[in-house]
């Protein structure tokens, strides 16, 4: 043992280890905790207000309290650029901004009038905003949305990320993270879909939370903001509404707001997109005129891409497993009329027309915006590479390809 200790003692590395300990141990022991230097941001809002940018940070600052609630506050800063706004928000916070845990990034519509990547680049590449943050737009300001989300949380227990998460799983179906936005943006077609949450005056349906805006007194950013950053305006009631909308972006700019029906139509070829309600009206059954609601429970899609006479043709065969869930008519109830579940020729035609009509509208909208969120280009590139490359070479590149594609949709419905 003594010999071993002697051996260690004689080793120069031992002394180096001791020297490192002498220098760094006191530093490590007496250095303040991370939380004292860094504010943990859980959501980021970016607004363009005229020529200025406002950053709002939903920040968690660990403090001792007797409840188990997280103390979060919205801290904001304004500047001529996003970087400057973050810098000022940092001053207001008195801490460094830590964006590692930011789960949601919200931008207002005005910001989406210009290429949004020029503002996001700073946050994602320099300020370490994680790319798995969910990217959402709003009709008012991101700051208002964040404030309302906090009130929604305390009133109903519903968190912003849960609302967005629900939409991501059930409505958008496609990934709406910042990474997914970048994937669309940097692809040949430069288009992507992001989520959209509304701030509406109270009175609308689907209200998750409502509050008087005057209670936004926690907003520390308003003190920091230069030219009247706080936007308290009387006692108007506003609510955060999950309207189920989404935004189609082209070249990083807003191209179109998609409502739920349009989004469902765009997602028709997506097998993960289920549970939509298809409503057909004025169906004659059992001598009555009924309105029927069907729920999509299962979906199989076969896609084929080909060139006919030198022009691209995309054929999609969609097989829907549907279930009758509601019958609207004189004293009719689906539970006691199993025969109503049968799909006759008339119902099939109506469903077909409904689905094809919606899909046709969606395709027209995508063609109008040159926005290939259906990845038609990829489909042709994979299956018909030679013809596809020749075609886009002769017809203005991949971006314009969608306009030339003829879509053929074959829908078959059967009770699930």
């Amino acid at each position, binding site marked *: 043992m003594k010999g071993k200790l002697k051996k260690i003692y004689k080793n120069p590395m031992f002394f180096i280890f001791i020297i490192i300990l002498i220098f760094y141990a006191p530093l490590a022991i007496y250095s303040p905790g991370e939380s004292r230097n860094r504010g943990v941001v859980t959501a980021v809002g970016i607004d363009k207000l005229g020529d200025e940018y406002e950053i709002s940070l939903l920040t968690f600052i660990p403090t001792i309290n007797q409840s188990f609630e997280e103390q979060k506050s919205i801290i904001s800063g304004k500047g001529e650029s996003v970087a400057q706004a973050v810098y000022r928000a940092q001053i207001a916070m008195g801490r*460094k901004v830590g964006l590692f845990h930011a789960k949601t990034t919200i931008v207002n519509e005005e910001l989406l009038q210009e290429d949004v990547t020029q503002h996001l680049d700073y946050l994602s590449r320099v300020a370490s905003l994680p790319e*798995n943050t969910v990217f959402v737009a709003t009709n008012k300001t991101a700051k208002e949305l964040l404030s309302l989300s906090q009130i929604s949380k305390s009133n109903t227990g519903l968190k912003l990320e849960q609302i967005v998460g629900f939409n991501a799983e059930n409505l958008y179906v496609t990934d709406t993270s910042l990474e997914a936005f970048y994937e669309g943006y940097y692809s040949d077609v430069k288009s992507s879909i992001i989520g959209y949450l509304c701030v509406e005056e109270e009175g609308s349906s689907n209200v998750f939370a409502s509050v008087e805006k005057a209670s936004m007194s926690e907003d520390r950013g308003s003190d920091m903001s230069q030219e009247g950053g706080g936007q308290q305006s009387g006692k108007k009631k506003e609510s955060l509404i999950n309207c189920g909308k989404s935004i189609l972006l082209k070249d990083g700019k807003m191209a179109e707001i998609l409502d739920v029906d349009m989004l469902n139509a765009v997602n028709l070829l997506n097998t993960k997109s289920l549970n939509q309600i298809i409503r057909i009206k004025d169906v004659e059954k059992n001598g009555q005129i009924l309105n029927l609601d069907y729920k999509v429970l299962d979906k199989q899609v076969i896609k084929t891409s080909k060139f006919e006479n030198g022009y691209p043709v995309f054929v999609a065969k969609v097989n829907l497993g549907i279930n009758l869930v509601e019958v609207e008519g004189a004293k009719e109830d689906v539970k006691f009329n199993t025969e109503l579940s049968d799909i006759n020729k008339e119902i099939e035609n109506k469903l077909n027309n409904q689905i094809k009509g919606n899909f046709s509208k969606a395709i027209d909208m995508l063609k109008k915006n040159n926005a290939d969120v259906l990845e038609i280009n990829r489909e042709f590139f994979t299956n018909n590479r030679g013809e596809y490359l020749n075609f886009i070479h002769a017809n203005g590149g991949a971006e314009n390809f969608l306009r030339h594609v003829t879509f053929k949709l074959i829908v078959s419905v059967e009770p699930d």
Partner: protein
Amino acid sequence: MTKYISARQAGIIAFLCILANKFLLLPSYMFKDNKSDSIFVMILLFALDFAMLPILLKLKKEFPEEKLFDILSKKITKPVTILFYMIFGVYFLFKTLIIVDVVYVYLKQQVYQEDFLAIAIMSIIPVVSHAAVKGIKTISRTAEFFLLLVIIGFVTCLGFSLFTTLNMPVLFTTPAKVFFSSIYKYTFSFGDFLVLYLIIDKIKIKKGEEKKLYKFSLSAMVLILSLFVLYYAKYEVTSFMHNDALSDILVFSVRFNAIGRLDIISMLTIMFIALFEVEIFCFAFCDCVENVFPLLSKPFIVAIFDISSLLCYFILIQKYERIVSLFSSWLSYVGIFINYVFPIICLTIALIAYFSRKKYEKLVDGGEK
């Protein structure tokens, strides 16, 4: 303790050298030129690299106990050998610096969020210097001890990527000209068997143990290729934005509320791999200097490494952009020499020795008869 390392330990050194500077920045850097076809560039470069291994074994067979410096001195004169060793020295010095810089930037982004150069230098230099003084036997034994941890960490990182959305990478999109020019451009990141050439006299390969070298080398290549495939399958067009491949493939998940704490796995794996690589390359640099200046003592040579690496770092590199451009600038010439010229010279020497031996054996047999 014997001064030799076993075939297994030599295989582990080859394994670690093959992983060198390919698992963080290279996948995203290569994507800019070749898109997902970088996978094929890697396969081709690995194949060319792999050809160095049978040449090494042939050379070892013909000169079982001799140092590379002595073999080259005898065959291509001492001044040319010294020139070769100086090129090797530059190669190892820059390879070390590139690894250190890439890992430093990774840790800065992931952990510190600010410069921690002083801490990094103070922690790396003593450990690496000590390992270089102790020699390849110590390094290889330590690496052997931690090998399983490194492999598990690497495979775990790859495995976790399977839980996210993966798409088949779009292949065959790069023009042939760009494809083949990439072989020149990225050649500096290869030449991984050169360390084994330098320590050829210290490797003890028993009969039939050659396959261990092949096994470890192929495993490392498969791991790197798997990383490339999964990384491109995961990120597709945004691959160029994610500079820390092994870390990003594990940490980032497109799933909502992804678990971020798993990054400790990639962090430890990266740190272990980087540490061993830096130790190996530091030792290799010192070996080159030792042969060029045989009168210098080992600690003195290590001090030369420390000073020259710090000088090069502060003068030439430091900025991330510069290191990225270094990959494909004049260092590619060094890479070409090490990957293609040097093995051909070694093969020629080995073949000449082989035929001379055969001729001699024939003469002896003829005389005896």
